[in-house]
């Protein structure tokens, strides 16, 4: 328990230890810790960013999907409309065609009827003439009575 040179020895030895600690021991440990701190901070940052990106991408995807759905719906609607129109058009055309066919058929029929009538009329006048010849027993001068005969034919 004497006070002696141990005191000086401890000052010197301790100073050397502090120097060693400050030069060789402390810096690498501190550097490693700070580097890790930085790494973790960066990791957290990028995780945040990734999360945000994901959110954004999800949003974008939802928007795209919505758009696609809308487009599909509009295309479908247009197609439906177009189909209906085509059907309508076809219907109209068919009706028209039908009408036209019917009309032409009617016209044909009428023509036939008229022709038949004309023929009939001619025949009738002939028949009438022959009948009258027979009745009168004489020849009717066709030329003489043609006016009368025509009148008769027209009445028939």
């Amino acid at each position, binding site marked *: 328990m004497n006070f*002696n040179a141990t005191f000086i*020895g401890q000052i010197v030895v301790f100073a050397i230890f502090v120097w060693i*600690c400050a030069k060789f021991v402390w810096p690498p440990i501190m550097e490693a*810790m700070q580097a890790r701190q930085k790494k973790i901070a960066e990791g957290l940052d990028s995780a945040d960013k990734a999360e945000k990106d994901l959110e954004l991408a999800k949003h974008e995807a939802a928007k795209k999907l919505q758009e696609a759905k809308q487009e599909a719906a509009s295309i479908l609607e247009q197609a439906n409309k177009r189909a209906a129109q085509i059907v309508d058009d076809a219907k109209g055309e068919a009706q028209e065609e039908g009408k036209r066919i019917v009309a032409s058929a009617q016209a044909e029929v009428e023509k036939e009827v008229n022709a038949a009538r004309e023929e009939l009329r001619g025949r009738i006048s002939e028949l009438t003439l022959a009948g009258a010849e027979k009745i009168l027993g004489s020849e009717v001068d066709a030329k003489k009575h043609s006016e009368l005969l025509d009148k008769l034919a027209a009445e028939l």
Partner: protein
Amino acid sequence: MASEGGYANASEYIQHHLTNLTYGKLEAGSALCDGSTLEQATWKVAKCSDEVNGMGFWAFHLDSMIWSAALTGLFLLFFWRIGRKATTGVPTGAQNFVETIVEFVDSQVKDVFHGRNPWIAPIALTVFAWAFLSNLMDIIPVDLIPYTLELMGVKFQKIVPTTDPNITLGTATFVFFLMLYYSFKVKGMGFIKELSFTPFNHWVFIPFNLFLELVGLLAKPFSLGLRIFGNLYAAEMIFILIALMFGGGILIAIFGGVLQISWAIFHILVIPLQAFIFMVLTIVYLSQAHEDH
């Protein structure tokens, strides 16, 4: 453990445990262990307490110095090896342990010391490790290492460096030198001015102020060194007294065992506490040295 077998009485046992292994200069004419007188001054390892007491200032406590240096050296070696291959990835095992301590010291420094000085934290770490490991030696049963070494021919051995005031005051004085260094480095002549003009800011009071401030300044290393010494010396003393009981019959020995365990458990609190106080005060003193008042 302890037995009074080798000692004449309890007082000698205690005295023996409080004597350092000393290497020093014995002046001519001092008494030697065998009763003869030394003819010319020599440097030697003291063989008995008479020789120890005969040595003047030029003597070294080999045990205190070697234990102190070995413990601090081991700490540095361990931390250096871990730090050298420290990974910036996920730390494991020893690196975790080392980083916890470094982090702890660093946060203490950041709390108290607000300047930018990369030396303060390593100083604090070294001080803390030195104080903690030195104190920790007090847990080892008082006779274990000294008795083993005595069987090997080493007469004296004190294994707790912090029970040696030379060691604690040495460390405290080192801190004191750092305080002076940083005070002058940061404040220059302002430091002298600070000493001269506080607490009374008038030139008439300069001598009074100087006296007051210098006493205050010198009290810092003294209180720093003596606080840890006092605590550890008292604790060591109690361990020695408890160890004495082992020579007093089976019942007293058992009682002594119980006492030793309880005192050791209590001492586990004192060991880190004193190391912590030493470290924090070191940081505070160095912080004051950096600040203008």
